[in-house]
């Protein structure tokens, strides 16, 4: 299953949904997908190539939008699926529906706990605080302890 | 005059001072052998060859801050270490090695003192459980339940294996048992199986690896001793040391033929034989990994108890045929 075969699978099977497929190095393929048909492409890849190994998800702060790169490993290389989501509404469907993914309890649908987040907000980008958007509530926990004389043991 | 002598015996020779000094020496010996088995140095800088290290640890603990948890039962929490120490030191008085009035009798010697000694030695386990239960800490509660679960495992094989030589010697009195085996040294051999079982059970009683589950620091932090600090922890440590000395003394009396030969030679025999047993305990501690609580009970009832019964059988057969 070398790169050429994968590229023509991408072009034939997902012709509409996949664009600018590049192959910069041996065993490295990058391609871009729209957020709305992300689940379809990932599901399709799973059947077509038996792709099961999601190494990690990288988030890059690209000015007015976030670029999310899903790094899939397959039996002899690395497949990188790129999507762009607007910064105003940074939500993307979690792919744990297709690959079983993370058994850590999911609180809200589509919101995976801090292991693999479904909208992997690159916490390192400066926009995180504005994204939170709200006035910061006072940190309650520390207040209570301070009030009680500070020394927990006494 | 006799009262003064008793106080002297209680406080100085077989009692507090001697047991304190000898048990710290035994702990030093154990730590040094354990270290040398693991190809490292062990305590070296406190006193000559690190001899004063256990005493230094004890004094350090005495000077440390002593914290009692808010919701713990204060009196019980504070009394238990002292009671434990007292129980173990009184057990020390029963060993037939102190040579008063010429004959090789213990401070207090009567028929049936081996039962008292065994009972006094199993009291610290219950005290540890009470200590764990009264310190209302999650980890110590788990440690306490583990202490009791293990108790059910090793207690019965220990009693059977220690009492089988007594049955062969046809008496419950420690000094008489010792005397019996001094006159017939060959009869020690059939008891060796009981000796191995007793060694493993004593290792479990003293909560040393492979049985140090109740205070396994990598699983439940401090286990029974999580909430203890300062003087109380120091007394518990000392209690475990003295318990090691007294248990190995008991094994030496019953299995290795007691301590003949007057005051000084008897003491020398006592030191030699107990250190030999402590060496065996250290080797066992260095050789094995810690096992889980359910494995302890499983191992005890699958291997130790049958072997103890077998030992009992051998003793009865010999008693019937030979004597």
């Amino acid at each position, binding site marked *: 299953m070398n790169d050429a075969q994968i590229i023509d699978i991408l072009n034939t099977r997902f012709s509409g949904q996949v664009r600018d497929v590049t192959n*910069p*190095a041996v*065993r*490295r393929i990058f391609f871009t997908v729209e957020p709305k048909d992300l689940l379809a492409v990932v599901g399709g890849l799973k059947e077509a190539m038996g792709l*099961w*190994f*999601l*190494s*990690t998800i*990288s988030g*890059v702060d690209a000015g007015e939008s976030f670029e999310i790169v899903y*790094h899939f*490993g397959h039996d*002899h*290389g*690395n497949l990188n699926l790129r999507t762009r989501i607007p910064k105003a509404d940074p939500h993307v469907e979690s792919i744990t529906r297709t690959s*079983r*993914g*993370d*058994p*850590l*309890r999911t*609180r809200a649908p589509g919101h995976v706990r*801090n*292991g693999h987040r479904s909208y992997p907000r*690159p916490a*390192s980008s400066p926009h*995180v*605080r504005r994204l*939170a958007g*709200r006035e*910061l*509530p006072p940190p*309650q926990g*520390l207040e209570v302890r*301070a009030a009680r*004389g*500070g*020394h927990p043991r006494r | 005059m006799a009262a003064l002598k008793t106080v002297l015996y209680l406080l100085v020779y077989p009692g507090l001072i001697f047991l304190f000094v000898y048990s710290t020496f035994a702990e030093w010996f154990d730590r040094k052998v354990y270290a040398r*088995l*693991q*190809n490292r140095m062990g305590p070296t800088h406190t006193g000559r060859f690190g001899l004063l290290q256990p005493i230094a640890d004890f004094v350090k603990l005495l000077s440390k801050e002593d914290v009692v948890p808010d919701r713990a039962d204060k009196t019980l929490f504070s009394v238990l270490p002292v009671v434990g120490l007292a129980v173990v030191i009184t057990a020390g008085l029963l060993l037939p090695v102190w040579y008063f009035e010429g004959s090789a009798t213990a401070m207090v010697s009567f028929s049936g003192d081996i039962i008292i000694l065994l009972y006094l030695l199993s009291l610290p386990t219950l005290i540890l459980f009470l200590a764990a239960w009264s310190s209302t800490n999650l980890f110590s509660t*788990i440690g306490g339940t583990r202490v009791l679960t293990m108790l059910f495992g090793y207690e019965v094989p220990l009693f059977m294996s220690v009492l089988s030589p007594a049955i062969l010697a046809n008496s419950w009195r420690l000094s008489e048992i010792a005397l019996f085996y001094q006159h017939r040294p060959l009869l020690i051999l059939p008891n060796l199986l009981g000796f191995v079982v007793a060694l493993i059970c004593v290792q479990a009683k003293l909560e040393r690896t*492979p049985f140090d589950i109740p205070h*396994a*620091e*990598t*699983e*439940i*932090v401090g286990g029974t001793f999580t909430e203890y600090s300062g003087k109380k922890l120091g007394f518990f440590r000392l209690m475990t040391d003295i318990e090691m000395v007294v248990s190995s003394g008991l094994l030496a009396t019953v299995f290795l033929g007691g301590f003949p030969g007057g005051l000084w030679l008897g003491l020398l025999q006592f030191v030699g034989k107990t250190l030999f047993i402590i060496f065996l305990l250290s080797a066992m501690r*260095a*050789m*094995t*990994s*810690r*096992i*889980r*609580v*359910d*494995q302890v009970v499983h191992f005890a009832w699958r291997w130790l108890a049958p072997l103890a019964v077998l030992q009992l059988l051998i003793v009865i057969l010999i008693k019937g045929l030979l004597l």
Partner: protein
Amino acid sequence: MKFQIPIGPQHPALKEPISLRMTVEGEVIRDADIRLGYNHRGVEKLAEQKNWIQNIYLMERICGICSHSHSTCYVQGVEKLMEIEPPRRGIFIRYLVSELERVHSHLLWLGVAAHEAGFDSFFMYTWRDREVVMDLLEMISGNRVHYAINTIGGVRRDLDEGQIKKIRDGIKILRERSEFYLKIGSTEPTFVGRLAGVGYLSKADAIALCAVGPTTRASGVAIDVRKDDPHAFYDEVPFDLITADTCDVLGRTVVRIKEVLESYKICEYIVDNLPAGDIAVKAPKKAKPNEVVSRYEAPRGENIHYIKANGTDKPERVKVRAPTLGNYAATVVMLRNGFIADIPLIFAAIDPCICCAERVVELVDARSGEESVVRFSDLRALAAKRRPVRSVKGNVPWPL
């Protein structure tokens, strides 16, 4: 009745802060919840403010035990970005140090796992013999932990005849000791009793949860970046991929010890046919705008660096995914239906490098479920407010 045991951020079994909340019924674990975020250092953001050379030493300090893995993974990526090819002798020396690091990391893990199981003598012996490989690394690179032998375009130090002879002797001693540990690790009854059947991870689970490294190889999944995606060196080296199918902690122990024996074979291959020539190529200061994914087989599993350059001498984005993060999901499945006594052992079996796999975590208000980010200045203000309560001893002014 169920209650929650916090194997909290501070715990003797955990060398680094991570919180495992276990819901426990008697001695059996029903469910586990892993929480990260106690040790976040902002390495990725810091990497965006340092130039390519400075970042080598920053990447090394992501983890203390697998420092060379991160620096090699980073340097491989940057060399692709700058389109330079390090000379073969440089590559050979670089992967010699990475194999020696795999040996030292696995021996370290063996000792820590033995200590978690309570087998302290095994811990003392493995760590005594680990000193042999640490001395070799100190001789080659000048430091025991952070070797700093990588530079962009090759390595910084060469090997001379005396060092090669020492390496050969060291490997001979280590191989004999490792075979002894394989015997002990798989036959000592009390140790095997603690390891066998503990922390079960079926092959299907290992695949579904994307576990990496020896954890997944012990469940029969044969993935290894050195075999699947060999980067310019491993495709010519004769070594075989170790897998076991017992799916438990014993399998992981055996896989790791056998991997150490394989590493000795690789080291001897490197030392035997070390090509002549220089060891480094001069690297430019800037990299053309491009992106690269570089993968490397760290001792704990697959290590991924996604590096994006924007033409300046500083990277635009460096994303690091350490192998331990991949194994956290599998750890939750492994911990279920285990005993309390086995928690440290199961958690240590994935060889967690907690500081590698650190992610920033939002503070979530327990009552309202609202997420917030506490600024550094807020924390300082709070600390200032509490200062009168604090003990008088050391009012050291804030050094930074």
